């Protein structure tokens, strides 16, 4: 991996002397502001609709409306007024570099949920704000999304995760009680996997499942490390969203002797072994997430 590190370091060094930001198009440099009444003269629908959105509330000094209106985002419009057919005459977001689009939005959306956008996973993958949001033509009731719902928005790329919601073991996403952003902040976070709450996977999970956070007198190591060692939070074909069925999952780590090392096959099924049927290992080891009983060393109490 040393060559990769070296290459990256070299690129960073290259970056340091470059002090000036990308120059705007020549025509944009020469352009002047014309006022949004001029814009609305042609773009009347956008001019009307923007007032129904948060962007159009001049009472809020942070909105484009309180600044230069349309030109707060699209830049000075005189060159565009002079020659609307000229592609570089004004900022047209669908044709811009995604990171330039985001820079425009981040000029105002630089607080709250958006502070970690730069360098986030979505930024790294060349998504822009306009990949998911539409200022003039949103389909969602909230957040001005291009799709009707948050799940539909995420589904355009994360098909695997969204499809898992249809499985038998799932969180109440398809019932409308949660959505992707209940756990994730797609604008970037300080946590891993763009998780919204806390600083590690477990802190997100125990944000709702607080009873499992302990610390316990007797901890179970993989539980303490990461809930997703055993659970798939997007859904699974197993009870309790487990990544595999018990006892197979437990036998991935517990093989020792006697019952953990035993093959629980069709013969055990026929004899209705309590280590196979029902909830299997947790028929006895119910304190699988940790025990606070002095006699809980094997998570039975």
């Amino acid at each position, binding site marked *: *991996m040393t060559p990769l590190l070296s290459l990256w370091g070299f*690129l960073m060094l290259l*970056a340091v002397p*470059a002090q*000036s*930001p*990308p120059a705007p198009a020549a025509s944009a440099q020469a352009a002047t502001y014309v006022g949004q009444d001029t814009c609305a003269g042609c773009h009347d*629908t956008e001019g009307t609709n923007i007032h*129904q959105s948060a962007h159009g509330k001049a009472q809020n000094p942070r909105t484009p409306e309180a600044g230069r209106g349309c030109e707060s985002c699209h830049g000075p419009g005189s060159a565009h007024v002079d020659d609307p057919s000229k*592609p570089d005459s004004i900022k047209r977001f669908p044709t811009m*570099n995604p990171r330039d689009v985001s820079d425009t939005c981040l000029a105002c959306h630089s607080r709250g949920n958006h*502070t*970690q956008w*730069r360098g986030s996973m979505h*930024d790294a*993958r*060349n998504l822009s704000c306009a990949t998911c949001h539409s200022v003039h*033509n949103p*389909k969602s009731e909230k957040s001005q999304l291009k799709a009707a719902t948050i799940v539909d928005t995420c589904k355009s*790329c994360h098909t695997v995760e969204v*499809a898992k919601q249809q*499985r038998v073991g799932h969180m*109440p996403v398809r019932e409308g*009680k949660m959505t992707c952003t209940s756990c994730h902040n797609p604008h970037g976070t300080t946590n*891993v996997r763009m998780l919204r709450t806390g*600083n590690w996977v477990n802190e997100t999970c125990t*944000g709702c499942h*607080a009873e*499992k956070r*302990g*610390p*316990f007198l*007797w*901890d179970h190591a993989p539980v*303490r*490390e990461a809930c997703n060692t055993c659970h798939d939070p997007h859904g699974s*074909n197993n*009870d309790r969203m487990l990544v595999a069925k018990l006892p197979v999952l437990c*036998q991935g*780590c517990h093989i020792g*002797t006697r*019952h953990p*090392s035993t093959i*629980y*096959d*069709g013969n055990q*099924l026929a004899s209705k072994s309590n280590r196979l*049927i*029902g*909830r299997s290992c947790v*028929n006895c080891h*119910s304190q699988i997430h940790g025990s*606070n*009983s*002095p*006699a*809980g*060393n094997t998570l*039975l*109490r």
Partner: protein
Amino acid sequence: MRTMRLILLTMLSLLVAAAAASAQQNTPPAEPDQNTGLSSLAGGGVDFGFRGTFFSDGSDEARYQRYRDLRNGVFAEAFRWGKQDDQQYWDVHATHVGYRDHQYAANFNKFGKMKASFEYNQIPLFFSQDTRTTYTTTSAGVLSLDGYPAQIQGGAATSAIYDNVATAFDLQLKRSITDFRFLYSVTPQLDISGSFKNTQKTGEQPWAGTFGFSDAVELAVPVDTRTTDVGVAAEWNAQRGYLRIGYDGSFFKNNISTLVWDNPLRSTDAPSGGAGPAHGRMAIWPNSDLNSGSVSGLFKLPSNSTVTAYVSLGSLSQDDALIPFTINTAIASPPLARPTADASARITATAFTYNVRPTSQLWLNARFRSYDFDNHTQPFVVPTTVTYDTSLSTINETSSPFAFSRKTLDLDASYTLATATALRAAYSLETVDETFRTFSSTTQNTARFSIDTTRVQNLTLRAVYEYSKRTGSGLDEQSLDDIGEQVSLRQFDISDFTQNRFSLIAVERLGSNLSVNFTTFVGDDKRPNTGFGLLTHDNSGVSFGLDYIPDDAVSVGASYQYETYSALQKSRQANPGVQFDDPTRDWMTDSGDHTHTLQASADLMKLWPKTDVRVAYDFVRGQSTYIYELVPNTTLPPVSQLPAVNNKRNRISADARYMVTPHLGAGLVYWFEKYDVDDFAFNPTTLNTVSQPSFMSLQYAFRPYTANTIWGRVTYMW
């Protein structure tokens, strides 16, 4: 190797395709249509009417309503009322009014000055309506068997009696969440925000107590907990950056901290090594407090670069009183090493990011992140314990307060080839130092290469290849030997591995109305240094779909996905002694999981005058297999393979509404849902009695269902 070549070839092809396509771009974007989607901000409406749900015989009604309440009766849904002007905006929402899954929300926004929101959300979790038990709750956390253990101990009855006297009950939980948030803008630069959330969880869930290998007891553990979360923050934002200081607290309170349950086979306590106790007792979820303070900031530097920093300091603590080792009065409970849990951890998290765009084409990012879970809990020394409340056992065991420290460095470089096409190379280094684990630390190196291109000849294409290698150090095989495990066992969450992953998303717009999409992914995972445990696991999948939106009136979409997963793990069936070292007793589990998912929908809005019609179909079929394999020279008895586990769900929904006037509509909604399940462990024919050969069951089984729900609906809008 062949997979690697294929992946590299595919990446290369994508690069060429993207470069060629980008040379032909600059297609003018489609003009946006006229729907702002904001009409719901003003006015209001409500749906009300009557709903009926009909099940076929033997249906698992609870599973159909697992997180929702679809009982028969009148309903009021989708109430919303809002108003906005240039100064402020407010709305209120209510849905599923009066049912177990009801939800109420209100939002207020005084533009530029204050935002506030309130939500009450109740989420049911309906496990089963067919569960049966003989236990009754005599007081909070105490489950009793009404005199039957004495009969059984006295020989007047056998445990079979429990099947005769068990009564059916609904096994369900509900989570009631009250959430209030506000943000006040003191100045255009300074915001103060606060939040208060109260989550109450009540009901019962499946649990277990055991008195020995052949005397396990499935219980419905009572749940009565409350979690209170509070947060306050101040955020200052200016042209050059921002600074945020915040506090978050979370306080978990369990109103039932101890579970006591009767032994179904005995009514009197027996001395150590005897026939067992009259009761069992365990501590359940302890109260805990989590407090954290954080500071974060962003500073804009020259050269289109930014630095962000985040530091969080937290403490997690729980100090519940410890219960004695046993409730068995015939056994002198060993002394406790300390009276309370005295468990705590310091949590320190940091994140620092440097991001720079020296040119409009080049994007570089460096991020360092750390998470330190420093467990301060003193090891709990247990020379002698009481197992199953039955026997004194000398174990000389000490608890292991696990701690870990995780540090991650991510370096990313992205180069924009053309307006919407970027190539990215990334490297991540993650080290995790751990205590009380087989490895004292692990190091994971990851390289990623991706290409992302959008709107090139109407093609959106995203592909990423990732290679990871994790290596452990400080191996302590003695720790495995101490707990009676094979020393070549490697626990899969920390074992050495090499992983390859590739995924591709392609979306092509065919004209302005039709788009098709294709996704594929493949991954393999090898664990070469694992003797026992998880050896390999691989997954792959493919999906394709289409969306056809010819105009505002018609929207049609369909998608299909297939995903497969396989894993191989190794074990050895052995009793202590010579069997432990006998390789002829080795066996493997070859696990497979295959899932097909199909979703299709059509929205026909005003295609016919005043009429909206929505239809949808969802299908999912999953099959899991667990195949046991023995070594060729095995000395184990022949294996009888387990049957596959099958889940299948079909769902059809249709929703039609006719607007009689602009304010009044009438409609019908119909849902058909059919679920088939065949799970050997939860099969109702297996769990056909409360009194099983080696445990008392709740008969919590997985059953199929066929449900039809019909809603007669009137919509009024204003």
